[in-house]
């Protein structure tokens, strides 16, 4: 096993943790916002996939990776708007609608992709990187941490912004109240439906951006079903993070590393069967849930629609 601990392996693992971790981070942060406001957003997998598809399509037609990200955000928000309408405004069951949206988007994006590209999978050009001067030259850590796409840095900054928002602003307070006791927020003059809808739309935007990152930066192409459960891992991250964005970041990097073990081990020349290695992230999810799942503290009104004056 000593051979595994080479610079090449570590570097590749770190790179992988970030490349695979950033979409999880975006999804986890997005989901956290919905859950804080009391909406269990199971549809996030579908939002990511819609973001991946629209993000790729926009980037491919416009040849601009940044327009691609905007397209991804729009795709996620589109699905989220449907979720907000059905679950927040019309108070339908959040779990049923979430699963339906995910399944619907999976089928729809596969179909659209097939119409457009038939069985070809066109590739995007490699994205630009921002090489931070000097830092990139640090061995092992340097290229992994500091030679990444600017979106990586934006995602990391958003962790701090969200942490501030939740703790120190009236908006964060309103979100927390909507998730814990919406009736109290309502009679205090807040707007439960508006804040919950906004939170769901934010989730859609973040998930869509994460999906677009997977398609445009991670893979460079769109494949149907390509998100492969990243949104669901995002839900797990949000639940385990107990409302703290920094914990979502930590979890995303751990899961990202687990997801990228396959590549890293191949780089290191290991002979463990790939099937076993590909199982690791999901084993990790289960292990983490078994160990820390009990401690997950969820908002009291999570998953419960709010109706004014209902007894």
């Amino acid at each position, binding site marked *: 096993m000593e051979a595994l601990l080479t610079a090449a392996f570590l570097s590749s693992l770190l790179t992988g943790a970030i490349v695979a971790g950033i979409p999880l981070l975006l999804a986890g942060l997005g989901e956290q916002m919905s859950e804080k406001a009391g909406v269990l957003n199971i549809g996030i997998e579908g939002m990511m996939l819609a973001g991946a598809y629209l993000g790729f399509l926009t980037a491919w037609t416009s040849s601009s990776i940044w327009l691609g990200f905007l397209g991804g955000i729009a795709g996620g928000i589109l699905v989220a708007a449907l979720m907000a309408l059905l679950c927040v405004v019309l108070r339908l069951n959040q779990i049923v609608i979430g699963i339906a949206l995910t399944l619907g988007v999976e089928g729809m994006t596969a179909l659209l992709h097939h119409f457009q590209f038939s069985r070809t999978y066109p590739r995007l050009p490699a994205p630009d990187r921002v090489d931070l001067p000097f830092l990139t030259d640090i061995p092992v850590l340097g290229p992994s941490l500091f030679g990444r796409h600017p979106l990586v840095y934006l995602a990391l900054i958003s962790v701090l912004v969200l942490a501030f928002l939740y703790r*120190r*602003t*009236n*908006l964060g*307070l*309103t979100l*927390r*109240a909507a998730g*814990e*006791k919406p*009736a*109290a*927020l*309502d*009679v*205090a*003059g*807040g*707007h439960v439906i508006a*804040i919950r809808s906004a939170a769901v739309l934010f989730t859609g935007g973040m998930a869509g951006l994460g999906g677009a990152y997977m398609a445009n930066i991670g893979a460079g192409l769109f494949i149907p079903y390509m998100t492969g459960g990243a949104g669901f891992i995002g839900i797990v991250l949000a639940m385990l993070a107990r409302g703290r964005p920094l914990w979502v970041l930590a979890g995303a990097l751990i899961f990202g590393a687990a997801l990228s073990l396959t590549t890293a081990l191949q780089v290191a020349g290991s002979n463990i069967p790939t099937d076993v290695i590909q199982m690791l992230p999901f084993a990790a999810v289960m292990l983490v849930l078994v160990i820390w799942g009990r401690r997950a503290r969820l908002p*009291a009104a999570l998953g419960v629609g709010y109706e*004014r*004056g209902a*007894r």
Partner: protein
Amino acid sequence: MTLPAQTASDMSEAVGLHTVTKRFPGVLAVDGVSLTVRTGEVHVLLGENGAGKSTIVGMLAGLQEPDDGHISVAGTGSRLDSPSASLDAGIATVFQHVMLVPTLTVFENLVLGAPWWRRPHRAQIERRIAELSRDFGLKVQLDAMTGDLSLGEQQQIEIARALLRDARVLILDEATSMLTPSGADELGAQMRRLAERGLAVIFITHKLGEAYRFGDRISVLQQGRMVGDIAPDALARMDEDAAIEEMVRLMFGGSDTSASLYRDRPAPTAAPLLSVERLGTEGGAEMMALKDLSFDLRPGEILGIAGIDGNGQKQLAEALSGQRSATAGRVMFDGADVTRLSVGQRRKLGLRYLTDDRLSEGTIGIFPIAENTVLKDIGAAPFWSGGIERPARIGAHAREVIRHYSVRAPSEFTPIGHLSGGNIQKVLLARELTGEARAVIFNKPTYGLDTRNIAASRRRIREIADKGLAVLLISTELDELIELADRIAVMASGRIRGTVVNDAGAGDLRLRLGRLMVDEGKMADTTGDAA
């Protein structure tokens, strides 16, 4: 919405209802009510459960809109179509159930609902809270976690929040129901000071004494209609007894409620049906243990269990019904030892228990009335045959229950959680009396009911005993026990401290019972085996 400046007169209208009507499915909750609340007054809205008080609060708070009629604020017609519209109009409400987020700090709850883009201003809030504590004696600790505070403390926060928003009308819905008597008096004094500062205070209650002591003006509601009003000058001329008599007259429309139901009849002498011998249960951090309890209960007899709440009464009821296992002694029923029998087996023998926890233990709120009537007979004939539910038979049974016990409900399909406490109690009683009932344990049967339902429930309990059933009546209300019971046993600290024969005529009965109730061991030496 803009509001005109208040007129010079300090008795001007703060808020008014003009022939307001509100319907809910199957219920006319408020029927053409007109009401004027003036600044500088504590205006009491008095009525039984279901009289429409809470609906009026809901409309003033912006939770519901009237179907007919309109609401005016400071003399101008206003549409209160959301809680924020109501707050903007200067109406703040302290609801019956606390409307604070338990996981937020007190400070966070105070600033909740402010525009989301605004940062909370800690220093400013601190200064205003200091003023409020000085002027009104409000107790608010800003950094406490709200859920850790007592309900009384949380209520103070809600009042403080109303004042922080410069409310001109403060509504207190059943605000004393969760307070101790001295807490209620403090709240009454606070209301007085607020009214003196020019607020209009609307105080909703069903307690007549509080209405008299705290109110300037009393309006009485009955079944959604405004049936009477006692103006400040009239109220000032009355003493408490006269005022209460007037309120009772208005609330019950002259029907007699004060007729004594004292059981003037020979004590039953039949052989005991239920015998409890040196019964004991295990205690815990939250639960008092029962120690060495013994008593007999005869058919046709009502044995009262008196005591301050939480001295083991619930454990006794549960040990008898089979919900709690006994660790010592035995329970004999009709000559057989039932100590080890299950709840269902005891029920079949005719030993029935009517819980005091109607909502979480007694019923399943979202199930229709029909299914709740057979909840304790699942799988049994005639409502099930061969394991298959027979909805037609259950429905017919439920309709019979509704008719016979005059349950006020739209139909047997109504979820039982939508009924008032009194009506749920009727369904529960019907369920316990179904089949071969021989002994019924009542745990606080009239707790939380309104006056009319209390009287009806007591009448039923007496009828049950007159039919020859044995009744164990656990109650914290001495009046109830003196009215109904043949003998009264007093529980304290998980033991029976003494049993007295109910001789309501003798003046010091209450005194004797009271002495046994407060006993903490030192009295046990002299009266421990007074039975």
